[in-house]
């Protein structure tokens, strides 16, 4: 059967991105033909600014080489403009007469520069700034002429002016508005920007209205005259006064347009066979002029073209950054403020050249402008997109992420100021220079793409924030972090952790196969990211119904030991509450000798690690330890790890509560508990806190009148101090409150989210509501925890039985 045919009009950023997304989720579905009016393959239009500024070459900014089209079986017509869409015969006709029939059509014709309707706007030397041709013309003009006038003090105008100045021209920016970038900046930031651009040698004429462009003797433009009679010389006039969606072709073909091609939330036009994306589109009355929202549109359009029919585009909040080297500026959302009920926090340091304004409404960040120090721009933008309640961090919000100590991994140094040789990712030894180079040369737009290509942030992840900042400062407004709760779980799906978790519960899915089928997974059996997550969601949602799938667990959990760099394993027997006996120590010593364990070490979790055990020896060493009454310490799992204790009132002269006893009881209650990530507890006998309860997922501190409970601490990649939850009187209450807290986390946390990250997402108030204010709910949560652990068995024991044993036994062949 012949494949359906897909034709794309417009070989630009949004259209080709849609094809890429489509090929990713459904390769080989269509016969694809592309028409592009420009004589080039798809390139990164954004980077025309650095090309003009002499920082890059045209060859550096190609996104899809001709090979890409060929390798994907795409028929490409470059330098051909489509003149007509015949919707009845379903074909498109180009200016050279070539035709292409379609079953689905995608229109992505972008936009065109707005040319001021003044006399002389068609003279030689008067151009817009849109494509490679315009850029070449500007570079050529800079070689031959002296005076340039840029009309329009917006992002595009300033980038053009900066580039021309760097190429040696005398540049004046003419702007109608009261200050520069009035659509992106408030007045104070606008004036600061003007000052630094003047320091670079640019001239500005504000609130000037152009009357006409005057022709010189050569026939070329020679001057610009204003309404007030003033006239300045100009051998080159760049119109950067705005863009107009390019929808003439669509309109002429009878597709409904209203200041753009009108599309619904699936990017479909009024003709159901025709989709449209990019700057030519009007979605809910908005035409976007930045890449990030267009890429979101591309993703949705691809999904519908693939026939999956799930994504919806509901509009975007955009942020902008000026790509002028040495100038740091960022704005996002509603930054003007002044609306009813909104408040502003302003930091203004004219001497230090720093200005920040944040606009807050209903305890949420709704907009911000930053000038001079934009390191926290991406972080603010993420808070804004996620609609996170910020009242708890409001006091220090304006000072940025480093001071707030927010959830997630901060990148504390200022990306833009870092030297190229500075190491960004300590795990994989990746420098800033390497990352910037990959972003530019490979045309990367998302954190995931950077991770894949450079390995930065792909191990411990602590530098992810910094990598995002580098991404933002390299590609400007094209950067857009996904909304936290809508990030796809992995490349196999469009669905987020939130969506998958909710679907499993709501639709009562109990096997991974059901999840893959019902949620339209694009791979037959997932990958190493989604399978473990889904397995966890299944067994935590339906503990008595779903069966654990060993093949969906990563090796440590499958073999109940930690794999080492040389392929051997480590064995950590549980020592309840950090307590042991001479008999246990003797058994450990015997086992270590019998199996020739090379290293015996005391861990940071108050127990003993036997490192360097061969896989085939695991069942044997476990059997010996089991025989001495010891069980798995789960030092390997997204599971209960340790409950550290101090000596407590049992021995200590300051102890107020029996810390060891409490710790052992908690650890026994939680034995074999799996969770979204690992879980660690500690119990200290008094506020001197020798068990370090302040950095544990649940920390318990004995006081004279009972116990204080702390939650959400983390001593790992980024230290988080646990937050005070409540005070309780008895041991039973400690078990109930801690158990209920952990069960809530188990039921609602996303896979690989530690308690501190989960808490940062849902807020302590929510948790208090569920645990402290809802007594019945708390008991029920605790009850569900106990229910799901009622059949807990030692995995070392069960792994030595039946089928499970096979993985440890190599098959011998004589060869």
């Amino acid at each position, binding site marked *: 059967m012949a494949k359906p045919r897909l034709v794309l009009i417009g070989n630009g950023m949004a259209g080709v991105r849609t094809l890429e997304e489509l090929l990713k989720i459904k390769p080989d579905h269509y016969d694809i033909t592309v028409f592009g009016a420009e004589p080039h393959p798809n390139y990164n239009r954004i980077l025309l600014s650095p090309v003009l500024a002499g920082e890059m070459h045209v060859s550096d900014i190609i996104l899809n080489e001709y090979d890409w089209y060929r390798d994907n079986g795409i028929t490409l017509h470059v330098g051909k403009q489509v003149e007509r869409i015949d919707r009845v015969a379903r074909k498109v006709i180009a200016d050279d007469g070539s035709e292409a029939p379609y079953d689905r059509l995608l229109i992505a014709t972008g936009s065109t520069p707005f040319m001021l309707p003044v006399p002389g706007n068609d003279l030689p030397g008067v151009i817009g700034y849109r494509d490679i041709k315009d850029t070449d013309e500007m570079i050529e003009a800079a070689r031959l002429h002296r005076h340039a006038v840029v009309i329009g003090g917006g992002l595009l105008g300033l980038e053009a002016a900066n580039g021309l100045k760097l190429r040696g021209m005398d540049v004046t920016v003419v702007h109608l508005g009261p200050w520069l970038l009035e659509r992106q900046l408030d007045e104070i930031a606008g004036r600061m920007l003007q000052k630094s651009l003047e320091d670079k040698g640019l001239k500005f004429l504000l609130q000037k209205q152009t009357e006409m462009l005057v022709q010189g003797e050569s026939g070329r433009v020679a001057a610009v005259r204003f309404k007030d009679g003033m006239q300045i010389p100009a051998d080159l006039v760049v119109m950067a006064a705005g863009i107009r969606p390019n929808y003439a072709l669509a309109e002429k073909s009878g597709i409904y347009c209203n200041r753009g091609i009108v599309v619904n939330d699936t990017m479909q036009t009024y003709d159901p066979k025709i989709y449209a994306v990019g700057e030519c589109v009007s979605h809910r009355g908005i035409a976007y002029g930045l890449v990030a929202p267009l890429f979101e549109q591309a993703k949705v359009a691809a999904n519908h073209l693939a026939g999956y029919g799930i994504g919806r585009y509901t509009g975007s909040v955009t942020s902008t950054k000026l790509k002028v080297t040495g100038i740091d500026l960022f704005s996002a959302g509603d930054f003007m403020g002044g609306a009813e009920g909104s408040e502003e926090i302003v930091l203004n340091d004219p001497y230090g050249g720093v200005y920040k304004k944040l606009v807050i409404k209903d305890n949420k960040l709704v907009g911000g402008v930053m000038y001079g120090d934009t390191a926290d721009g991406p972080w603010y933008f993420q808070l804004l997109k996620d609609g996170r309640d910020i009242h708890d961090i409001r006091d220090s919000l304006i000072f940025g992420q480093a001071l707030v100590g927010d959830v997630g991994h901060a990148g504390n140094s200022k990306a833009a100021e870092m030297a190229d040789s500075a190491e960004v990712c300590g795990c994989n030894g990746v420098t800033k220079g390497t990352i910037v180079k990959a972003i530019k040369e490979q045309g990367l737009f998302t954190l995931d793409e950077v991770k*894949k*290509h450079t390995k930065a942030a*792909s*191990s411990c992840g602590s530098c992810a924030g910094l990598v995002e900042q580098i991404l933002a400062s390299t590609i400007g407004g094209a950067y857009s972090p996904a909304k936290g709760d809508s990030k796809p779980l992995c490349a196999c799906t469009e669905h987020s952790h939130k969506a998958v978790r909710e679907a499993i519960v709501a639709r009562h899915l109990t096997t991974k196969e059901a999840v893959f089928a019902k949620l339209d997974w694009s*791979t*037959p*059996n*997932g*990958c*190493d990211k989604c*399978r*473990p997550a889904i397995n966890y969601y299944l067994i935590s949602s339906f503990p008595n119904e779903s069966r654990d799938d*060993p*093949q*969906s667990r*990563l*090796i440590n959990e*499958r*073999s109940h030991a930690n*794999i080492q*760099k040389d*392929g051997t394993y480590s064995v950590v027997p549980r020592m309840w509450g950090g307590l042991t006996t001479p008999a246990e120590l003797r058994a450990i010593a015997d086992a270590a000798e019998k199996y020739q364990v090379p290293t015996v070490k005391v861990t940071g979790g108050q127990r003993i690690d036997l490192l360097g055990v061969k*896989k085939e020896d695991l069942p044997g060493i476990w059997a010996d330890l089991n025989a001495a009454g010891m069980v798995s310490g789960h030092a390997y799992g997204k599971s209960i790890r340790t409950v550290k204790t101090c000596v407590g009132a049992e021995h200590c002269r300051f102890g107020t509560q029996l810390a060891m006893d409490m710790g052992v009881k908690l650890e026994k209650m939680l034995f074999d508990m799996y969770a979204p990530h690992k879980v660690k507890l500690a119990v200290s006998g008094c506020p001197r806190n020798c068990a370090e309860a302040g950095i544990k997922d649940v920390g318990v501190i004995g006081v004279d009148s009972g116990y204080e409970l702390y939650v959400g601490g983390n001593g790992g990649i980024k230290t988080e101090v646990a937050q005070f939850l409540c005070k309780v009187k008895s041991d039973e209450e400690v078990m109930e409150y801690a158990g209920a807290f952990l069960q809530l986390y188990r039921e609602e946390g996303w896979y690989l989210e530690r308690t501190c990250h989960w808490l940062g997402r849902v807020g302590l108030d929510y948790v208090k509501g569920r645990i402290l204010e809802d007594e019945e709910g708390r008991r029920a949560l605790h009850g569900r925890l106990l229910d799901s652990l009622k059949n807990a068995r030692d995995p070392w024991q069960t792994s030595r039985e039946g*089928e499970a044993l*096979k*993985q440890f036994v*190599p*098959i*011998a*062949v*004589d*060869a």
Partner: protein
Amino acid sequence: MSQWKKICELGDIPPLGSRIVRPQGGEQRGGDIAIFRTADDQVFALHDKCPHKGGPLSQGLVHGRRVTCPLHGWNIGLDDGRAVAPDVGHCTSFAVKVEDGAVYLAV
């Protein structure tokens, strides 16, 4: 010349899982071989050494026609032993066949 050797029953390898085959004479013969079984009961064999830093691929997670190395997460194609882009590298693959529910390896 290599010859087919029966190594185990198909049922001895879990679907989406793997087993280690250890040729007698061990290291001199190149070390362990990992055999994998996909969801649709295809069987593949690779040298049990990741092209990145030698991680034991038999301990990885199998999905589609790939295995993800347990050490640093490279993806290796089961049929050709090649690392999936953007990573570069490749490990030796061996011929295997399944007949009447038994798995044979060319050694």
